[in-house]
């Protein structure tokens, strides 16, 4: 089989980044991560790549392949024109560690701020009864493998345009999973409005597009949460008037300063 030219970002905060080129022999069924492993084993043993399961179940190997945020373990080489080079870069929303590895610790920090699962104190777990239909939505949120591709593509996070805290799509999905858990008793609407910054999302759906688990992040998680917050904190008629007047400053649901051109990856 033919060889493929791979252009891989190499660098760290201490050294200027460059694109290193490698010729990789292509086998049938190969994915981008296979090509990265070949490079590690044959040409660049110190090439920094994060990966684990190689089966799209752990969400470790996220990177940008020809500009598109992807899991490298499920991005097949056969989906590309192999006469052209394939470019692999680290996720851009997070600080660079080295080569294709970024510092994603911010995600773990913001996750800690979410009020945890709170079951009722008076019903023992042996007596909990739910129907399958009642949990299918929650199970959709719980499919998330924490690849952080949605965080990477979210322009609120990517452009760092806001000083206010914002959970980002991944953790809005987690919050939705807790809020809609059949037996959870906590109320996170106040948290979502203030510390969660849910109003900053202006539903451009870029997150949904890149989700490898096909979670309908915007439609099924973020919008229902926004509705809960709105029901709780904003009188709908007042909101309507504010929108008509074009007064955005006092309406958190529309306060995101980020442009709504969600496809912008040029920054």
């Amino acid at each position, binding site marked *: 089989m033919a060889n493929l030219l791979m252009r891989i970002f190499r660098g*760290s905060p201490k050294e200027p980044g460059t694109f290193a080129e490698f010729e990789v022999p292509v*086998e*049938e*069924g*190969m*994915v981008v*991560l*296979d090509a990265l492993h070949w490079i*590690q*084993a044959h040409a660049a*043993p*110190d*090439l*920094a*790549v*994060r*990966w*684990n*399961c*190689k*089966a*799209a*179940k*752990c*969400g*470790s190997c996220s990177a940008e392949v020809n500009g598109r945020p992807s899991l490298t373990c*499920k991005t*097949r080489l056969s989906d590309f024109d192999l006469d052209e080079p394939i470019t692999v870069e680290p996720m851009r929303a997070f600080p660079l*560690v*080295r*080569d294709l*590895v970024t*510092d*994603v*610790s911010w995600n*773990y920090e913001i*996750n*800690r701020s979410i009020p*945890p*699962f709170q*079951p009722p104190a008076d019903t023992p*777990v*042996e007596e*909990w*009864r*739910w*129907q*399958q239909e009642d*949990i299918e939505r*929650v*199970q959709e949120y*719980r*499919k998330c*493998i*924490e690849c952080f591709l949605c965080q990477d593509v979210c322009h609120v996070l990517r452009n760092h345009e806001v000083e206010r805290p914002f959970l980002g799509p991944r953790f809005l999905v987690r919050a939705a999973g*807790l809020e809609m*858990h*059949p037996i*959870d008793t906590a109320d996170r609407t106040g948290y979502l409005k203030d510390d969660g910054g849910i109003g900053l999302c202006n539903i451009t759906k870029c997150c949904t597009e890149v989700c490898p688990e096909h979670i309908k992040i915007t439609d099924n998680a973020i919008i229902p949460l926004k509705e809960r917050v709105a029901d709780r904190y904003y009188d709908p008629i007042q909101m309507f008037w504010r929108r008509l007047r074009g007064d955005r400053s006092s309406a958190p649901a529309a306060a995101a300063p980020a442009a709504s051109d969600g496809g912008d990856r040029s920054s």
Partner: protein
Amino acid sequence: MISAPDRHPHDVLVIGAGGAGLRAAIEVAALGASVGLVCKSLLGKAHTVMAEGGVAAALGHVDDRDSWQTHFRDTMVGGKMLNNVRMAQLHALEAPARVRELEGWGAVFDRTRDGRILQRPFGGHTHPRLAHVGDRTGLEMIRTLQDRAVAMGIAVYMEHTITHLTTNPSGVTGAFGYRRLDGDAVVFPAKAILLATGGIGKAYEVTSNSWEYSGDGQALALRAGAELIDMEFVQFHPTGMVWPPGVRGLLVTEAVRGEGGILRNSDGERFMWQYLPEDRRHEYAATDEEARTWVEASSASRQTDARRPPELSTRDNVSRAIYTEVREGRGSPHGGVFLDISYLPADHVRRKLPSMYEQFKELAGVDITAGPMEVGPTTHYVMGGIRVDAETGATTVPGLFAAGEVAGGMHGANRLGGNSLSDLLVFGQRAGAGAAARAASIADDPYMNPVQIRAAEEELEAPLSRTGGTDPYRLREQLQATMQSLVGIYRTASDLKDAIARIGDIRHLADDLCVPGGRAFNPGWNLVFELRNLIDISDAIARSALVREESRGAHSRLDFPATEKAWVDRNVVVCRDGETLVVGTSPIPPMPKDVRALAEAGGGA
């Protein structure tokens, strides 16, 4: 290296953040001790996340005839009576409470019609017993435990590799390692250390395991003076993907067979009938019709008197069957056999096995609702491991504990599917309590000997400062090829002796490993320390396999094909003497009469 390494003292240091490590850390924190949790990857990426089929617990929700006693018996039968009896007993007794506890922490399992946790059938289990979430149970479990650990404020040290344990004459004193992100050395003084590092799959070419599973805990324990038992028992899961090459070995969950998947060879023959062991044949369906009746009842979560399909034989047996079919020329185009679930309605298959559907569609271009998968055996799990006390997870080294796959004894000669997730929970909790109790009994702060720390630092730096030497990637390939070809499903004395000699040569070459690049996130450098561990445990596996002159469970000797009574009450034990491994056997105390009666209770349901 002039500056002293960062220090993170804790009462208990848990190494490994899969199911066992997380559950252990939660227990330590719940008991009020300070706990640090160290893992090689990001939190939530450990191999538990790959567990698909479910967690075994005799809840009796689908078939109320189930009981802990039946679960115990199935585990002992599956383990060919070599299991640590007390572990098997505690496991069967406590698994239901551990599963309900997960639900109490927010896990959302699939439901029965009456709204309770649904259970699915699995190989070697008499009744439907595996609580599950489609085929992503491991993800549900690890996320639930992760959320719980985060809510408790447990200190997590992600992407840290531990290379040494420090000891003094009264036990362990701490751990030494480095931070992947910048490569700086880190020390963790601790009153107790709990190993939960998982398995050894990377010793083989074809494995379902990720890069992390390099026998770290087993090797660290050996070097600290602990004993390993039963290392000859390596589970080759019958169904891994065989194509494309990049995913060869990737797990195809047993839930496919649990949901009714049929194994066929290239002649279209349902070959498992002829591989059922005679003494267990009565537990399996006799005809296609009976198997079909069972599948239909099981799909509808109904009790049935039909017996289970032959594909649900134990893993050791199914693996040997597939291996034999392929070797005798009845394999599929890419060297496996066919596994077919496409005779069931497509939407049912997609609902029950969503991640298998995606996995085959995305990675192999195969629609499993329309045609068969190609599958073959893949190195999956090690039954053997660090010798531990059943009640507390204490190893033979004071202050050193172990839980989960890294510990030995629970599964005997062969593990039943679904029993690993329950093992992680039951013994994670117990070892966490054991380690917390040990820490509480020690008044003084642990003192890590600076001479040991200095030696560890020098060893850490060495492969980066050498010029010219052995490439760790090449050397690992050599080791994997040796294990795959000589210490695989079928073994002989001559192959094993050959393997031991080759591993000796590899060990010698590993003294001279050399990698380019710096300290920051350098995978070649990290591989040096993993390779050292892989060499130790490969050596332990090969030597143990040579000593056990019989076939039992996952250990099949062509030169000793019979299961021998003389070997049922003996563990093969490995310990370390300087730079060499010493192998011997140790007697297993006789089972109490009532327990033996339970374990040997005849017949299935």
